[in-house]
């Protein structure tokens, strides 16, 4: 059931900064047609911009979205973990695929460069955290050529780019990211640290990834695998780059990366938010292709 454009119909829940940036990216997508944005704040600037962009706008949140006919096929949830817990079953019952940008973790973790294909048919996927999107692929890159004993990441984010939800729930960031390093990165044990830096002008998001691997692995293979992974991430996050060569010290490699945002709606230094919206669009496009395939073969998802 595609739309007239042949693209999958999608909608955005949440009219904050993330929802607004997502809208700009989705409007460029060849595979997705963004039809609506729902918020709960009538005065929201995000809703006003969506209206101006020609989207249907709902001020009653998910109730509005679910009253649409035809229903959207995909909903991006950019609200909060608490709200998503409420949204998830309703979206599922309506047969809508949920792509969750909150830390609710109802669905399985997905990081496009790592496990996009595996999660293709899922009805709810979770994008871990911004730090997870930026660092898990590097750990996975080492994992595919060596046994990873321990992975530790330090995400440094501009204060101006850390919203109230992150600030009030900072333990959720460290705990969820650490789990992602283990489950998707393939590390036996993961640890995550987040640091906020208030420098003005704001710094780009930067992450340091320390990976300790089993003895005997080839440094050349690890470096090549990391470089390959960086190119894969750059497919959907062009501003993702290594800040230095991978640095080896015995059975440990240190990888330093920086994420410059695309500057769609959010400022360029908000690489931490940009990598989330970019990953969400990537997952959405893959979901759209999957829905089209399912429709063509007459099967269900």
């Amino acid at each position, binding site marked *: 059931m595609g739309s007239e454009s042949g693209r999958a119909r999608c909608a955005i829940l949440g009219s904050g900064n993330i929802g607004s940036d997502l809208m700009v990216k989705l409007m460029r997508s060849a595979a997705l047609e963004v039809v609506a944005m729902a918020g709960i704040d009538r005065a929201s600037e995000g809703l006003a911009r969506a209206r101006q962009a020609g989207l249907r706008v709902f001020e009653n949140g998910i109730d509005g979205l679910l009253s649409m006919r035809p229903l959207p096929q995909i909903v991006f949830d950019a609200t909060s973990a608490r709200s998503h817990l409420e949204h998830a079953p309703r979206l599922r019952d309506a047969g809508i695929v949920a792509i969750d940008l909150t830390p609710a973790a109802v669905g399985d973790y997905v990081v496009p460069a790592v496990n996009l294909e595996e999660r293709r048919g899922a009805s709810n996927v979770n994008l871990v955290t911004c730090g997870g999107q930026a660092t898990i692929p590097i750990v996975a890159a080492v994992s595919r050529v060596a046994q990873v004993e*321990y992975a*530790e990441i*330090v995400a*440094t984010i501009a*204060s101006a780019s850390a919203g*109230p939800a992150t*600030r*009030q*729930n*900072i*333990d959720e*960031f*460290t*705990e969820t990211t650490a789990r992602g390093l283990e489950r998707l990165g393939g590390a036996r044990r993961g*640890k995550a*640290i*987040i*640091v*906020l*830096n*208030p*420098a003005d002008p704001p710094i780009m998001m930067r992450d*340091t990834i*320390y990976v*300790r691997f089993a003895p005997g692995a080839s440094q050349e293979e690890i470096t090549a695998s990391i470089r390959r992974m960086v190119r894969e991430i750059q497919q959907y996050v062009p501003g993702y780059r290594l*800040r*230095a060569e991978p*640095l080896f*010290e015995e059975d*440990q490699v*240190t990888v*330093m990366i920086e994420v410059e945002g695309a500057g769609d709606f959010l400022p360029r230094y908000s690489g931490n938010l940009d990598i989330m919206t970019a990953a969400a669009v990537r997952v959405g496009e893959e979901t759209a292709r999957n829905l089209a395939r399912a429709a063509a073969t007459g099967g269900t998802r």
Partner: protein
Amino acid sequence: MSELRICDVSLRDGSHVIRHQFTADQVRTIAGALDAAGVHMVEVSHGDGLGGSSIQYGPSLVNELELIKTARSVLTRAKLAVLLLPGIGTRDDLKAARDLGADVVRVATHCTEADISAQHIGYARELGMQVAGFLMMAHMNPPAALAAQARLMESYGAHAVYVTDSAGALTVDAARDRVRALRDALKCDVGFHAHNNLSLAVANTLVAIEEGATWIDSATRGFGAGAGNTATEVLAAVLDRMGKNPGLDVFKLMDIAEELVPPVMQKPTMIDRASLTLGYCGVYSSFLRHAERAAERFGVDAREILTEVGRRKAVGGQEDMIIEVAYELSQRRAGRANT
């Protein structure tokens, strides 16, 4: 206003000096002696607080929970304190420390980021602990703005909020203005934590006390990051001469400083060119050992690293920037050598 209370931080801030290699025996001996010398609080944790054991900050030789348990077993009068930096340690870490008998937690954020401490201060109160907010790198925020951050911590439930001079960069007036601003803005207690990088630790501490700070940090023989903290035994002697000794045994503290701490310290903390650079450039004191190590690894001058890290406005916790800067400096040098 509460009575003056001294928190000896050697078993936490000193952890930086010895790259987190405390043994249970060392903690038992020093904590027991501090308790007997009348110190009001003894802080025990990884240098970067609960959960700090990591590649980024250096792994602990002995799990900090083991060290906390050991300290608990010897403290009779002094309260047992721990440090927690939101973003590094979590509520689970705090619960584990509380279960082992920690009485006090100091929740530390950069001086402009107090709002990330709400979760942890609130939880510590739920656990029935005494809580102090710790506004680190206080030289980077002017007095009025610092006081506004302190008010946030007070609103989350802190019993005290510290002006924390992590870089040892506050001049006497700068310290005075900040403590005064907090004292004017808060109903709760005010604390002061100094590093001696500009040789002002005792002087600034006295000024802080004069301005109404009552939670005072110090470390025996200055056993802390950079050029060390306010030396407990020196502060005790000075306060005693001023008739303000809050119950400290000056001679016993001198004995700890002379006999117990030096064998643990490996090398004395002192004002040398590297630690002076910390205070001069406003750099987080625990960066010192990391910069020395990176200087060796990449063949560059530790002062060059620290100066550049300061220029980039690194905050506490950004030890990875030291590696990056050292790497860049070495690349630049190699580039020059090749042309």
